């Protein structure tokens, strides 16, 4: 009896302790978000790391335009704009009364400074190509800027929303690498490298009343198991960009969490080296397309959480055409074609970068190709090696990679020196038409043609669209589930009652 009553007391005691410790901290105005990758610097205009945009862009630093979750362009630091009839002159009216976090004022000179800096000869802007169409930037008055283009650019306003086009101030631009100063709803507070980064609300923000969070803490957790434990333990309120699809079921089964599966701009492709035998032969590329079974790849590599693609365009986009049936899974037919082309029984390499979507897909594709008579040797290579050997030197047969930039069908017009090794004057002309067509309907019609062209030419095996997986506290609201751009504004985040 003694031991029993003792254990009961213990039980009651630890139950009380657990209840005490389990009370969530006052979380009404702060939120902690997990990120897998930690940036090394914080200036999106000088470094391409996606994690920088995830933290800084449109939260700390703003741009002339922004986009919503559907990818539609909206005003930001530019409250409105006019486009000349020839499509070459853009006149932006800037929001008035905006100040930077250090108290300095924002005006047209800052816009000119930011663009001139990004376009300069010695600029280290990671996406310099988006500034290429710009001929000049002119200050008309403190609240008006005129930008002249040398060529029409259908994606100009969209591109202006990106972190690469952030509006920075000459007074603070040097400090932006470690402590960015912008005009956004949050200001940079502190960064403990290797652990966390904190943003606090900017009380002087022009729409400060609508911002619910006083504090946003980013925690850097690269290990998927640790990320999942941190969520379960209540240490994190959310993990947008959750790295492990196989761990989602436990969160889906738990009413404390909301699991979101959205879309990104990332097309995952089985790239074939079009410049090299045997993939310079369209019949061989078509045979590869017949040999692969997208459903099995998605089931095995992504635990079913991805949308198959039949060409190089995101399924959520307005110009999407379903071309999945163009090459139905048919290993017997693929084998025949490989035999006809004289490549059956040959060995080729499939060099994959160290990302789970790629390594897992590779093994399944290897099995599928084997079924069609091709012996694909999977080589898992390190990222630096991939960039060097595959991207730069085109030294590969096949690889698997996600292309995460929006509007990047232009890759196929980059000529033989791009790692696809693909060049076709007909497609290049088509892309020129797409990228200069400013009428959305006409442009979408051209984009559809582009997709059909690429699928018909079987340039690559088009596998699936990379999903945006997220785990959120069920009471959190106002976040994006899809990722049309690299950034995600936090100003709308709030806690439900």
């Amino acid at each position, binding site marked *: 009896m003694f031991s029993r009553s003792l254990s009961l007391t213990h039980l009651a005691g630890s139950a009380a302790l657990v209840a005490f410790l389990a009370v969530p901290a006052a979380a009404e105005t702060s939120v902690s978000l997990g990120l897998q990758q930690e940036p090394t610097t914080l200036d999106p205009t000088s470094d391409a790391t996606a994690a920088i945009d995830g933290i800084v862009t449109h939260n700390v630093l703003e741009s002339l335009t922004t986009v919503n979750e559907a990818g539609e362009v909206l005003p930001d630091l530019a409250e409105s704009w006019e486009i000349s009839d020839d499509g070459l002159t853009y006149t932006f009216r800037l929001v008035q009364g905006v100040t930077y976090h250090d108290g300095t004022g924002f005006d047209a000179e800052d816009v000119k400074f930011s663009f001139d800096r990004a376009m300069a000869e010695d600029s280290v802007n990671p996406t310099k190509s988006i500034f290429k169409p710009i001929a000049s930037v002119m200050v008309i008055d403190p609240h008006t800027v005129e930008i002249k283009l040398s060529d029409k650019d259908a994606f100009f306003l969209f591109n202006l929303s990106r972190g690469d086009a952030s509006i920075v101030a000459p007074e603070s631009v040097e400090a932006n690498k470690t402590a960015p100063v912008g005009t956004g709803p949050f200001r940079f507070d502190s960064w403990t490298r290797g652990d966390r980064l904190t943003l606090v609300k900017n009380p002087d923000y022009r729409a400060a009343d609508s911002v619910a969070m006083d504090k946003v803490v980013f925690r850097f957790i690269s290990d998927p198991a640790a990320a999942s434990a941190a969520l379960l*333990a209540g240490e994190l309120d959310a993990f947008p960009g959750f790295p492990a699809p196989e761990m989602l079921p436990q969160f889906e089964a738990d009413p404390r969490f909301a699991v979101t599966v959205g879309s990104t701009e990332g097309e995952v492709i089985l790239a074939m080296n079009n410049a090299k035998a045997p993939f310079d032969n369209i019949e061989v590329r078509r045979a590869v397309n017949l040999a692969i079974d997208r459903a099995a790849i998605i089931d095995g590599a992504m635990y079913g959480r991805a949308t198959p693609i039949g060409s190089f365009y995101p399924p959520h986009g307005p110009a999407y055409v379903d071309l999945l049936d163009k090459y139905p899974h048919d290993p017997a037919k693929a084998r025949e074609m490989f035999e006809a082309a004289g490549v059956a029984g040959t060995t080729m390499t499939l060099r994959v970068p160290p990302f789970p979507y790629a390594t897992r897909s590779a093994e399944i594709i290897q099995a599928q190709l084997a079924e069609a008579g091709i012996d694909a040797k999977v080589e898992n290579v390190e990222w630096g090696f991939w960039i060097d050997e595959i991207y730069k030197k085109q030294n590969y047969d096949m690889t698997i990679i996600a292309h995460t930039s929006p509007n990047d069908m232009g890759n196929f017009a980059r000529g033989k020196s791009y790692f696809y090794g693909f060049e076709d004057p007909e497609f290049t002309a088509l892309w020129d038409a797409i990228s200069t067509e400013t009428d959305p309907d006409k442009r979408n019609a051209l984009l559809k043609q582009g997709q059909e062209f690429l699928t018909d030419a079987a340039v690559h095996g088009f596998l699936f669209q990379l999903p945006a997986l997220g785990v959120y506290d069920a009471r959190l609201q106002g976040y994006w589930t899809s990722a049309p751009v690299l950034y995600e504004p936090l100003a709308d985040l709030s806690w439900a009652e």
Partner: protein
Amino acid sequence: MSYFLARRLGGFLLTLLAVSVIVFAVMNVLPGDPALTILGIESTEDARAALRERLGLDAPLAQRYLDWVAGALRGDFGQSYSFGVPVSELISERLPLTLSLAASGMALTVLLALTLGIAAASRHGRVGDWAIMLFSQLGIAIPAFWLSMLLVLLFAVKLRWLPPGGFPGWGEPAAALKSLVLPTVALALVQSAVLARVTRSSALEVMRLDFVRTARASGLSRRRILWRHVLPNALIPVVTIVGLQFAGLVTGTIVIENVFYLPGLGRLLFQSIANRDLITVQALVMLFATIVVAANFLVDLAYLAIDPRLRSQKA
């Protein structure tokens, strides 16, 4: 200085020299261009060449090696490619956490191992002995990262007594200590399993010796015999293993820091590898190697202190 000590010191320095050559060579034959990784794949060849020059990557290999060693001896490990700050700054930011973790892990390891080892030896062949040996067998078999995950699931996710990871900084001492508990336990459980076995067999060996029988016959208490007579004499092999384990412990922190996302040197090493920040990787690998080699050297010195026979050895 005895011959023993001189030989060991020479060995220590030569090993460090060899390690520095190997580390430098390995870092410089790895494929991949740091300039390309830093500037991104859309950078121009001109920009990359300029960066390589600024980083000193265009100098001859031997020159770069000498510059690196000379700098390292002054505590200057160069500028991190990815963070853009001196590597020594990154290291000094993170060293205290790794050292705290290694020290607390070592302390708990020794405490657990000596207690369990002596307890098992004194219950030789009985249930207690068997249970302790089973525990240590498990400890040897279980990988540290898996044990860490189990501890997190139980104490952080289920019971919510301790944080699942992270480190708030020494500014909040209570929270900082709390966040070191699970990583320390995870480190120590695995390490002490090996050490407990060594302690046990060494103690059993000593207990068969004559002087123990004498002590027993003279009526000393069992506890006193164990702690005053058996333990000190059983320590020599234990010290060797502790020295070797210290190396294992420091490298163990690399795994543990990543599982518990602690901002220490191990995490920095992982990040630097991912960012292709070779100059930082180079400094960290050298630092870890130095710690391991130094630990072995200290073991030798400890022998000298424990075993008087070595002190009188002459060349």
